C-alpha cells in the first residue's frame, strides 16, 4: 500500500473498489454483481435485515473471507495486506469475564497490538494517546475496570476508541451503535464523523438504524435477500425503491428529518427463518 498516512490515497485509488463481487456459501448466494467504490472521506451506511451479508461484506474487506466471484481492492491492494491502516469495530459479543485486561488495555491494543517487540520505549507517549482516546469516547471513569465486567455499551465505546486510535484510512464498523443510548450514539457517531472530516478516512458503517448517522451519510448500500441497492439516502430510502428491493410493500415515512421504514420486518418474515442470529463463529 502506498499511503503516506495522510489518508488520501493516490489519485484514482478508492478506499474500497469492488467489481462484480459475489459471495455464496454452498448454494446460498448472499449477494452478487456488487460494484462498490468508496472514495477516501466517504461515509457509506450499510443497511439490511439480519443475515443479508453485512458482516460478511466487512470480512471480505478485511481479507478474512474470499469472494466467490469478482474482484476487491482495499486502498489499491488486496484486502488483508494493509490491515494496520484499517480500523475495525466488530459486531458486539460478550467478552470473557475472567480476562486480565482493563478497558484501557483493550484500547491500547488498537494502537500497537499488532507490533512485534516489547515497545518499552515510548511508553509515556503511548499512555497519553490511550488516555486521549479513552477520554474521547467518555470512557475515562471505567477505563481501569476489567473489560469483562463492563456493560455492552461501555465495551462498545472502548471498541470505537480502539479502532480510532490506530488512525485508520478506512473504518469498518459493524453495528457500533447497538446497545448504546441516544447520548452515546451521538458521541460515537460524532467521533467517527470527525475522524472522517479531519483526515479523510473512508467509513463503512453497518447499522440497523440509519437516523443516528443520517446527517453524515453520503451513500447507502442496502442489502436484502441477495439483492442490493446503492445510492444517496434520498435515492434509496423511498417507498418505491425499497418496495421493489424487498419485493413486498414497504412504506418509507419521513418525519422531522428522520426516516422510518415501515413494513420491512413483516415483508421479511418468510425470509428470515434461517438467519435469525449472527452467532456464527469467527474464523480464528
Amino acid at each position, binding site marked *: 500500500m502506498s499511503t503516506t498516512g495522510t489518508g488520501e490515497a493516490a489519485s484514482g485509488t478508492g478506499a474500497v473498489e469492488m467489481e462484480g463481487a459475489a459471495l455464496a456459501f454452498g448454494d446460498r448466494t448472499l449477494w452478487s454483481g456488487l460494484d462498490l467504490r468508496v472514495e477516501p472521506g466517504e461515509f457509506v451506511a450499510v443497511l439490511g435485515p439480519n443475515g443479508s451479508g453485512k458482516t460478511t461484506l466487512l470480512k471480505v474487506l478485511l481479507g478474512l473471507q474470499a469472494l466467490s466471484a469478482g474482484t476487491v481492492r482495499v486502498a489499491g491492494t488486496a484486502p488483508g495486506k494493509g490491515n494496520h491502516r484499517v480500523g475495525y469495530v466488530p459486531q458486539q459479543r460478550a467478552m470473557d469475564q475472567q480476562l486480565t485486561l482493563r478497558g484501557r488495555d483493550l484500547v491500547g491494543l488498537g494502537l*500497537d497490538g499488532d507490533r512485534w517487540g516489547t515497545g518499552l520505549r515510548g511508553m509515556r507517549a503511548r499512555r497519553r494517546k490511550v488516555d486521549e482516546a479513552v477520554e474521547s469516547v467518555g470512557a475515562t471513569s471505567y477505563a481501569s475496570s476489567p473489560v469483562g465486567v463492563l456493560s455492552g455499551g461501555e465495551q462498545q465505546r472502548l471498541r470505537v476508541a480502539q479502532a480510532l486510535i490506530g488512525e485508520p484510512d478506512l473504518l469498518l464498523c459493524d453495528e457500533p451503535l447497538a446497545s448504546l443510548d441516544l447520548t452515546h450514539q451521538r458521541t460515537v457517531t460524532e467521533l467517527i464523523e470527525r475522524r472522517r472530516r479531519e483526515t479523510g478516512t473512508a467509513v463503512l458503517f453497518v447499522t440497523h438504524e440509519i437516523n443516528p448517522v443520517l446527517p453524515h451519510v453520503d451513500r447507502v448500500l442496502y442489502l436484502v435477500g441477495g439483492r442490493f441497492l446503492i445510492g444517496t439516502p434520498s435515492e434509496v430510502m423511498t417507498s418505491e425503491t425499497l418496495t421493489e428491493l424487498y419485493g413486498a410493500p414497504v412504506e418509507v415515512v419521513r418525519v422531522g428529518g428522520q426516516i422510518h421504514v415501515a413494513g420491512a420486518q413483516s415483508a421479511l418474515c418468510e425470509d428470515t427463518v434461517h438467519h435469525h442470529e449472527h452467532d456464527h463463529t469467527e474464523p480464528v
Partner: protein
Amino acid sequence: MDKLFDVELTARLLQLDFVLMALGAAAVLGLVAGALGPLIVMRRMSFAVHGTAELAFTGAAAALLLGIGVSYGALAGAVIAALLLGLLGGRESERDSVIGVILSFGLGLGVLLLWFYDGRSSNKFGILVGQIVAIEQQDLELLVGSAVVVLIVLAVIYRPLLFATVDPAVAVARGVPVRWLSPLFAVLVGVATALGVQIVGALLVVALMVTPAAAAARVTSSPWRATVLAVVFAEAAALGGIVLSLAPGAPVSFFVTAISFTIYLVCRVIAYLRGRQRSLRDLSGSDSPRAAVRPS
C-alpha cells in the same frame, strides 16, 4: 516439629553447592513460569500444561532408560507434546479431550519405560514429583539457556500474542498471525514445562505455571501488573519451597505447592474483601453514578 524450622541448620545447608544450584534453577523456573502464567490462564491452557508435563515425564523416562540426560528427554517430550496438542487440538471444543487422550497414553508409556529401567528408584520417583537435589551443572546450563530463549521469544511476540488472546476477532482483522502464534506459544509453554518437571516433577508443574498467575488475576486486571505479580509469586513458591524443605529434609514439592496454594487463597480473600467494600460503598449512596465493578 522444631526440625521443621531449624534456622541454623537451614543456614548451614544454604552454603552447599547443590543447594545453591537448586536455588538457581528454581529462580530461573520461577521467572519463566511467572512470565508465561497470565497468558496460560487467559488462554485456558492449565490442562494443556498438565498434559505437556506428563509427556515431559515420558521423555524423561525414555532418557533415563537410554542413559542420556533427563533434561534433554523432558525437553523433547514436552516440545513434541506441545506440537501434538497444537496440531490435533485446534478446535476449542476438541482440545480438552485431545489433551486427555494424549496425556494418559504418554503417562502409560512412561510407566512402561520406567519399568524397564533398573537404576536407582529415587530417579524414577524424582521425575514425577521433583528431584531438585539432582540438578547438576550441565542441567543448569541447559535450563538457563532454554529459559533465555523462551523469555526473548516471549518479549518479541508478547503484544500480538496478548491481542490474539484477549481479542481474537480484531487481532485477526489487524493482521496478527493468530494461526501460528498459538502453536508457537504452546512450544514456549512446553519448554518451560520441561524445566519445571526437573524441579517440582511432572505432577506438580501446574503449581508454578498456573497457580501464581491465577492468584495474580484475582488482585489485578492489568496484564503488566499481573505478569510482575505472577513472577513474584512463582519465585516465592519455588525459592521459598526449597529453603523450607532443607532442614526437615522433606520433599520440596510439598512446600512449593503449599506456598503457591496459600498465595492463591490470600489473593482470593483480598479480592473478596475488595468486592465487599465496593458494594458497601455503592449501597451507601455512592457519589459515582455507576458501580465500577458489577457482580458477575
